[in-house]
Each structure stands twice: as structure tokens, then as C-alpha cells.
């Protein structure tokens, strides 16, 4: 009885978190047909400020970090990205009514990383007072890029077997790496890391990027909520297996990463908060740069399927459930 009550309490408290409130609020107003939208140029600005904040704080911390500590988590991040894509291919291609191209694009998107979900996780840890290595943000590309590359390469190999599509222009691995790093999200994050590492941005960080973080993230959550609802209509038109995959993927992927993080904790003293962030990198699915990269890399894949699964279901599940879940798990385990 007590346990039930405490779980209920936890849910209520969770729903009262402004982050989740704005996300659900966005879904609600979209469901009610509201014409409220955050203009796309404002959206890009918000993404920029959030990622610059995450990057700067990471970079300022790496200055004093032991670089060797980064190594193991970075290797694990690559492994996790690869495992998610292979697992996704294994599962999705086996399901009825799912084209290989769509399966791989979806798996790739879930292997890649959502910067805004990651920012929400950082804020959550700040709020519950769990410490973490700010440089975990530097792991982002290590998981994101291999996942995207692998998905595109596997799709191309699948296509090669199909003679009618053999003359398609192939996208090289180098191209995908370059394209990912040049995307606006990764560029902003990496630039922030570099500026945080090499310059002394404390004054501008304390006067602008840090104070704006919470407010802009609330608007970002609203946008993601609106978007989640909008895409749901498209998702409904494709096989319902995507929805089931999207519900389970954040939990399963987060657990896999939690396991790797646990090892890193034992071996190099990776902090519990760091383990949670690594789990959220894995649990999240890309919402900004992943989709166009996959669109260009696997043009035959149906965006309604892969974006729908990720934006409409994967991301809300990740924010509403995976973030508090893995935080609680870390409290329980460590």
C-alpha cells in the first residue's frame, strides 16, 4: 500500500515538472487544433542556445578532466550506437509489413541522439541534485554518427541486392561523417565544447547561456510536444509495429547503456549521474539532424514511419518515463 502510494506520488511529482508539463501541454494544444506555433527561426535559435550551453559547460569541465576517463565511455558510446542499430534491424525486419529501408532508417534514428532530450536529462539531474560529468555531452557524436552511418550502409547493402535499384548513387561513409558533423546541432555542440575548452567564456556563460537554459528548454519541450502530436497522424498511416517498437526502444536501449555505464563506473569511477546521461543518450532518438541525414542517405525510406516513430512516441516516452526511471535506477543501484 505504501509502495503504491509512493509510486503514485512519484508520478504526480513527475507530471508537475515543468519540462514534462510543457511537453504534454504541447501535445494537448496540438490535439485541440491550436494554431499556436513557435516559429522555425526561433526554434533554431533555441536549439543553438541550448546546445551552446551544454557544449560550453562540457568544454569548461574537460579543462580539468582526466582525458583518460573519457576514453572508456566514448568506446562504449560507439558500441551502444552500433548495437541499437543491429538490434533494430534484427527486430524490425522480422515484423510483417515493414520494408527493409524503413526498418533501417528507424533503427538509425533511435541509435542517434536527441540533443534536446539530453538537455532535459541534465536539467532533471540538476533538479534532483545528482552530480554528473558535464563532458558526457562530448559523447554525443560517438554514439550518433556510428549509428547513422551503420544504418545507411546496411540500407545500401540491402539495395545492392535489388537489381532495379543498383544504379542509385551511393552515399559514402566519409560523406555521412562529414554531413553529421556539419549539421547545425552537432556543430553548435562541438563549437561550444571547443570554446569552453580553449577560451574563458565564464562571463558570457553565467550572464546568458546558463540563465536562459531553463526557459528556452521549456519552449523546446512545447515545440516537441506539438510536433509529437502532428506526426502521430502520419504514424497512424504506417504499420503499427513502429509504435510498439517506439514505446519499448527507449527503455531497452537505456538499459543496455546503463549496463555499459555500470561497467565504466566500476572501472574508471564514471559517476552515477554520468551513467544516467549515457542511458538517455541511448534512450533518445534524433530529432534535428538525424532525419535529414537519413532522408538523404536512404531516400526510399518513408519519413512518416521513421520520424513518426521517433518524434511522436520515442521522444515523449524518453522524457516522461526514461529520464525519471534511469535516475531512480541509479539512486537504487549506486
Amino acid at each position, binding site marked *: 500500500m505504501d509502495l503504491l502510494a509512493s509510486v503514485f506520488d512519484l508520478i504526480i511529482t513527475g507530471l508537475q515538472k515543468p519540462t514534462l508539463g510543457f511537453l504534454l501541454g504541447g501535445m494537448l494544444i496540438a490535439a485541440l487544433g491550436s494554431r499556436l*506555433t513557435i516559429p522555425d527561426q*526561433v526554434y533554431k535559435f533555441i536549439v543553438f542556445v541550448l546546445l551552446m550551453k551544454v557544449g560550453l559547460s562540457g568544454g569548461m569541465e574537460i579543462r580539468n578532466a582526466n582525458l583518460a576517463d573519457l576514453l572508456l565511455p566514448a568506446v562504449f558510446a560507439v558500441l551502444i550506437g552500433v548495437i541499437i542499430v543491429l538490434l533494430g534491424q534484427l527486430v524490425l525486419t522480422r515484423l510483417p509489413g515493414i520494408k527493409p529501408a524503413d526498418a533501417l532508417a528507424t533503427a538509425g534514428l533511435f541509435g542517434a541522439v536527441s540533443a534536446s532530450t539530453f538537455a532535459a536529462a541534465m536539467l532533471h539531474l540538476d533538479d534532483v541534485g545528482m552530480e554528473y560529468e558535464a563532458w558526457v555531452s562530448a559523447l554525443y557524436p560517438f554514439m550518433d554518427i556510428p549509428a547513422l552511418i551503420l544504418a545507411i550502409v546496411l540500407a545500401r547493402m540491402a539495395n545492392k541486392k535489388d537489381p532495379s535499384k543498383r544504379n542509385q548513387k551511393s552515399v559514402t561513409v566519409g560523406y555521412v561523417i562529414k554531413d553529421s558533423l556539419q549539421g547545425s546541432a552537432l556543430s553548435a555542440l562541438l563549437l561550444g565544447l571547443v570554446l569552453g575548452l580553449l577560451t574563458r567564456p565564464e562571463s558570457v556563460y553565467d550572464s546568458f547561456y546558463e540563465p536562459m537554459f531553463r526557459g528556452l528548454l521549456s519552449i523546446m519541450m512545447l515545440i516537441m510536444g*506539438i510536433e509529437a502530436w502532428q506526426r502521430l497522424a502520419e504514424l497512424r498511416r504506417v504499420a503499427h509495429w513502429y509504435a510498439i517498437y517506439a514505446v519499448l526502444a527507449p527503455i531497452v536501449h537505456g538499459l543496455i547503456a546503463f549496463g555499459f555505464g555500470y561497467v565504466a563506473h566500476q572501472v574508471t569511477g564514471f559517476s552515477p549521474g554520468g551513467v544516467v546521461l549515457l542511458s538517455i543518450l541511448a534512450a533518445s532518438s534524433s530529432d534535428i539532424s538525424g*532525419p*535529414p541525414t537519413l*532522408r538523404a542517405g536512404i*531516400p526510399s525510406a518513408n519519413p512518416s514511419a521513421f520520424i513518426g516513430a521517433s518524434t511522436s512516441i520515442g521522444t515523449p516516452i524518453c522524457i516522461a518515463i526514461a529520464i525519471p526511471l534511469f535516475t531512480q535506477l541509479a539512486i537504487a543501484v549506486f
Partner: protein
Amino acid sequence: MKHSAKLVSIVTEKVFEVEIIRLLEKAGVKGYTIFEGGGSGSFHHHHDNISPMIDGFRIVKIETIMSDATLAEQIAMSLVEEFFSEKPGVVSLSDVEVFRNQKF
């Protein structure tokens, strides 16, 4: 002096813009104009003011005027056959009249 020319209009997703521009420049077009918008077709919807998150999926229209009608048709045809076989987009041709023929 008035000359007749062909206007090639290409409507597609922004994510393919760079590639198409490269094809057009290789084919020798002397200029082009690009507009952003939204649209709807057989692939999926492209709203013009919602969905800010995925900018690359917005619709763009690329217009290029060419004095050489045969070249214009050739470009349009090869785009449709090679480029747009599996990608969303529409190519159309129409007749226009221009001055200063050397510009096109």
C-alpha cells in the same frame, strides 16, 4: 528584342536542393532562382508553417530560364528519370519570353 525561352520549374524537398543545383550547374544553366514554401503530394505532407523541427523537409522551388529549349527538356527529362524516380518532386516546363538572350 524578344526571344522565346523555356522555364524549368523543379519542386522538391530542401534536403535535395544542393544536389539539384549541382546537376543544373553541370548541365550549364546560367542562373536560377529558389523559393521556399510548403506543399502536399504523393509522398507526404510538407506544411509551410508547422513542423519547424525538420527544416530539410520543407519544399523548395527552383526556377531556371534557358534559351535552349532542347537542353531544357533534356534536363527536365533526366531529372525526372534519374533523380525523382524514388524522391519526392515535380518538374514542369513552360514557355516564356525574355530579352537579353545571352543571359539565358
